[in-house]
């Protein structure tokens, strides 16, 4: 697609940020598993973590195309940082932005926008992954509080979040219509987190269980109406997927960048391997697929900015871009030969990072379920 002036300037700004702030950090975070507070602060100052939040609440007030640009450019260099950004700017933000009361927005959106509050989104449970309807966490209304009990798993930003959006069962007899969404503060009694998971990739983001043991949640922290939890979560994911799709696209582009650079330098049989037709055709395939993915991602973003529903578009973008990211990362590593298998080369980390995008925020299989149910309805 063609971008307007503003969008081009934004892309340039993100690229500058990335080359300045994310030079050696991605490899470092991959080793230590810790994202420096300093980086988080800078992401907040530039409003890269709050592009979706209106200016009146201290956010960037930009649309989804802008959001996708930010995600793509950050992920091109560091998928961990990009994942951190999506968890805050779509997963924790959108439920409040779309369904919250004015008080909730004042109290929480502002903090999320400025980076004072780190947000997380708690839907997945040990027994409820793709089948998010199989929720076990319960919220029972006692007086003017809900009492929350249960456990969420694989929660991005879990270990250091200040607030979490939590989906819990308020009325088991009603099935999916018996779930509700809550804003839960991590400082409340009974809230704890599990161990930081030792992951294959995106090791710079922290992922853990959230554990609720009789956590008292004031009634005013219910988002929307009782029984709307699942709807709120699905609405969030529908739009949030644009972000993850752009993130996957960024990983693919980043891996392609590495392959192009490397194949021009590496000499075998007396010439750079870029001169072999296999290399050229492989690069051509990669480029074509990355461009096709880009088309899907920005199409979904543009339509969303135009106020349209994008359930199918965002699912297609997420599905395709995620699969392309994996394929491109695989081929880019192959073109590196043995060197690609060694941690000194960026592609090794990118290859591991790519693996998550076809899994989280709905697996590729789940996206296909969404797409086909739209097509076949």
């Amino acid at each position, binding site marked *: 697609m063609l971008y307007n002036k503003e969008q081009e300037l934004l892309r340039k700004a993100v690229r500058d940020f990335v080359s300045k702030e994310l030079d050696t950090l991605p490899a470092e975070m991959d080793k230590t598993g810790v994202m420096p507070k300093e980086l988080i602060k800078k992401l907040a100052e530039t409003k890269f973590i709050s592009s979706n939040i209106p200016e009146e609440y201290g956010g960037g007030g930009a649309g989804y195309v802008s959001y996708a640009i930010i995600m793509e450019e950050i992920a091109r260099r560091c998928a961990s940082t990009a994942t951190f950004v999506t968890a805050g700017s779509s997963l924790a933000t959108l439920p409040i932005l779309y369904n919250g009361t004015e008080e909730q927005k004042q109290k929480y959106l502002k903090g999320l926008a400025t980076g004072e509050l780190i947000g997380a989104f708690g839907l997945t449970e*040990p*027994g409820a992954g793709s089948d998010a309807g199989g929720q*076990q966490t*319960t919220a029972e209304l006692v007086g003017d509080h809900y009492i929350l*009990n249960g*456990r969420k798993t694989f929660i991005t930003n879990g270990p250091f979040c200040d607030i979490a959006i939590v989906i819990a069962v308020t009325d*088991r007899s009603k099935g999916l219509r018996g779930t509700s969404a809550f804003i839960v503060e991590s400082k409340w009694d009974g809230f704890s987190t*599990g*161990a930081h998971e030792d992951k294959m990739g995106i090791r710079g983001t922290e992922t853990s*269980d959230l*554990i609720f043991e009789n956590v008292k949640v004031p009634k005013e922290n219910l988002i929307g109406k009782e029984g709307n939890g699942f709807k709120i979560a699905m609405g969030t994911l529908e739009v949030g997927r644009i972000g993850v799709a752009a993130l996957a696209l960024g990983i693919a582009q980043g891996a392609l960048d590495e392959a192009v650079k490397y194949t021009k330098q590496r000499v075998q049989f007396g010439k750079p391997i870029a001169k072999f037709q296999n290399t050229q055709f492989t690069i051509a395939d990669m480029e074509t697929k990355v461009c096709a993915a880009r088309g899907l991602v920005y199409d979904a973003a543009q339509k969303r900015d135009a106020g349209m529903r994008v359930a199918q578009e965002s699912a297609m973008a997420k599905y395709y871009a995620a699969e392309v990211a994996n394929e491109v990362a695989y081929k880019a590593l192959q073109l590196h030969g043995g060197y690609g298998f060694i941690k000194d080369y960026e592609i090794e980390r990118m290859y591991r990072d790519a693996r998550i995008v076809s899994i989280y925020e709905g697996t590729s299989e789940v996206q296909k379920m969404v797409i086909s149910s739209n097509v076949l309805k």
Partner: protein
Amino acid sequence: MNDIKDLSSYKNVWIFAEQREGKIAPVVIELLGEGRKLATEVDAELCAVLLGKDVDGLAKELITFGADKVYVADDALLEKYTTDAYTKVIKDAIDEIKPEIMLFGATHIGRDLAPRIASRVGTGLTADCTKLEIDPEDKKIKQTRPAFGGNIMATIICPNHRPQMSTVRPGVMDKAEQDETRTGEVIALDYKITQDDIRTTVLETVKTKKDLVSLTDANVIVSGGLGLGGPEGFEMLKKLADKLGGVVGSSRAAVDAGWIDHSHQVGQTGTTVKPNLYIACGISGAIQHLAGMQSSDFIIAINKNPAAPILEIADYGVVGDLHEIVPMLIDKLDSVDDLLEAIKA
């Protein structure tokens, strides 16, 4: 192999009366119970073979539990169990007196001794039987035991050799009733044994706290999860586990909380276990945990949440606070010591 013998000269049911430190092993009472049934059906006497030192009192006790005759070898050389000495004495007794059936408890000693004797006298042995019955047609004993990890039950007979020998799994057969008024005969065995016959020397017998038992080998696992509320909870579970001769397991959440070492973790990313008894205390039953223990023979779950998934796979579920229930369980177990012995054997 020995020559074909005159099978008809073999008579009576013998049981090996295992004793340790002057105490009769609990399984012996079960062997007497089962042996009595077999003896009645083949119309024979029930006899016990007792080896040890100063075991007079034990011989009388065996009679109160139903032995018609007790063959005793009382000797300092037999005070502690050794394969050589026990094998020789019993082999000679068998050659001399010719029992038709001989049963051993499938304890560590029984499993060591029975094959040695079987091979010396050249007869068949079926290990770890869970059911014994007399074929009404030909009065031979049908020995049934689980094979292939409990997946098939094999019934085995020993048609042409005598005695017909089995080791019997502890805790499976009914115990004999004690009757102080019963009478029987105590017969001293005629045996010859010298120090030279014994190639092993027992230097020391050490009783371990079973800390080193691994999860995979344990018959009983008492497991705790986040519901324990803290590392102290595991001390309570350890008490229960010790009582049952088992070991302590845990969920991943308890490991993550730093309450117990990873080596105790049961589940997909911990150890997969299949004990006879798995007691899950304060464990919700996430699929990642269930995958590691759901094929346990018997599962008991204690959880205060009646909707906890663990209760769906438990054979017995207790809905309540584990801090009340586990101590009650420990208390109750104090009054059934011999049951516990049977589980541990």
